[in-house]
């Protein structure tokens, strides 16, 4: 009984390491194709549109609502202590250090990551990737690398938009609606938010998340079982693994950056 249990744990760990090894080899192949993609920027621009621009709507709406809620809740708490002039600091630091990078990454994995996985998985299931191989076109370089690069570039940009819009939505609720002094909102933010320590670290987080989320998405798609159930499972795995990776990495990065 105990032996069986230990055996199953051992098998699971071995399997996890084997998967990580396969994913790393796959990543190396993807990265080796970057030069080809940069020589044909049209491939990248097309993917930047479908991965980045089409994710803009959900990022914009989420940023506005998150900023408004933060401001509202922050005001309710701060006003009891007569500290509502610090509302701008609370909203901006929350968004720049934590909520901007993390929520953007989670939304991005749900919107663009799942679409990447499903698209690549379906191309595999319908033998489109195999047919490319037989046309002497490497599907990793032609299909996967442009999508990977597009995701990696898009997420930090989307995160910056998320942060900026969230802060502005917080201002609208805090100053325009609830009456917090406009000067305090912006000037306290300017005093307390440091560019290198806060903004750059927030963007570094989003760069890391962009890399990991897109890597998971393209790997899951490329290794999906070529059946409808396989593609469906890969898409679910892509979102779940991305969310777990983002939250886990967020803790590690926060500990390194802000403690």
């Amino acid at each position, binding site marked *: 009984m105990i032996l069986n249990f230990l055996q199953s744990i051992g098998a699971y760990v071995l399997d996890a390491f084997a998967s990580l090894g396969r994913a790393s080899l796959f990543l190396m192949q993807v990265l080796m194709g970057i030069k080809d993609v940069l020589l044909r920027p049209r491939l990248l621009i097309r993917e930047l549109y479908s991965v980045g621009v089409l994710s803009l709507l959900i990022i914009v709406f989420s940023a506005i609502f998150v900023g408004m809620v933060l401001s509202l809740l922050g005001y309710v708490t701060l006003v009891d202590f007569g500290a509502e002039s610090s509302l701008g600091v609370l909203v901006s630091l929350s968004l720049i250090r934590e909520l901007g990078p993390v929520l953007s990454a989670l939304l991005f994995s749900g919107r663009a990551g799942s679409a990447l996985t499903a698209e690549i998985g379906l191309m595999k299931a319908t*033998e*489109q990737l195999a047919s490319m*191989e*037989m*046309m002497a*076109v490497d599907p990793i370089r032609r299909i996967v690398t442009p999508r990977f690069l597009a995701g990696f570039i898009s997420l930090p940009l989307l995160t910056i938009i998320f942060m900026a819009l969230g802060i502005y939505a917080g201002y609208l609720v805090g100053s325009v609606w609830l009456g917090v002094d406009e000067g305090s909102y912006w000037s306290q933010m300017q005093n307390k938010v440091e560019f290198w320590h806060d903004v750059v670290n927030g963007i570094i987080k989003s760069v890391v998340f962009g890399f990991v989320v897109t890597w998971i998405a393209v790997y899951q798609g490329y290794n999906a079982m070529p059946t409808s159930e396989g593609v469906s499972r890969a898409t679910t795995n892509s979102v779940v693994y991305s969310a777990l990776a983002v939250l886990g990495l967020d803790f590690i990065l926060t500990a390194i950056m802000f403690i």
Partner: protein
Amino acid sequence: MSDFFVTIRDLYFSRGDREIFSGVSLDIPEGKVTAIMGPSGTGKTTLLRLMGGQLRPDRGSVIVQGLEIPSLKRKALYQARRRMGMLFQSGALLTDLSVFENIAFPIREHYSFPESIIRDIVLLKLELVGLRGARDLMPSELSGGMARRVALARAIVLDPTLMMYDEPFTGLDPVTLGTIVSLIKELNCSLGMTSVVVSHDIHETFSIADHVCILSEGKLAAQGSPEELMNSESEFVQQFVQGKPDGPIPFHFPAEPLEQDILGKDMSGKSAL
């Protein structure tokens, strides 16, 4: 150099615990239409994928036009594939590109020809398969037979020396079927290609094949011209070519006896209750 375009020797290949090939050796003559046939699940498509280098054998050699395919490095393999064409059973057209762009795809990927030349090549290939008028349609607007003809035009657009067809006759209406059959033969003669056709369809395949190889249980069970196989005295070959239900090829997948499965191991019937 030998007269054989493809030489396969002592080929072993498994998927998990299931052995697909156990020592297959066969030759594919240059400039002819060779059919690879056999019951379902004997690895006919797998053999094409081994020839195209999409799979690597466990053991043995696959030599195509003098190149040992399994040992080629990535770059050399992709170079070798430029001289190969493959028609997939599903067509495998790129769904986000029009018919024209699907056929232009390999040219655009490998050469930097002016647009006017690409247009001419694509229209000539579409003319060959009778679909010049369908150039602006999307794959989702094509019937199964049309999709396969477009895929055929795309497979021959780089003028391959080896053309592989994976189940080209499956699921086609009689008119399209006749068109595809004659196209395969015509293309083989007019473009001087070596063709390998994987199929179960005895009548259509035998009508165009110069040489037929029949696979069974991981080995080459028989080979020869269609006439030789039709007149073969082998019980296995006769069952296969005449489609008889009884014979050496079992209808049932291996299993324990039906009575035992239903009544249980002690045959008391308790398991059924």
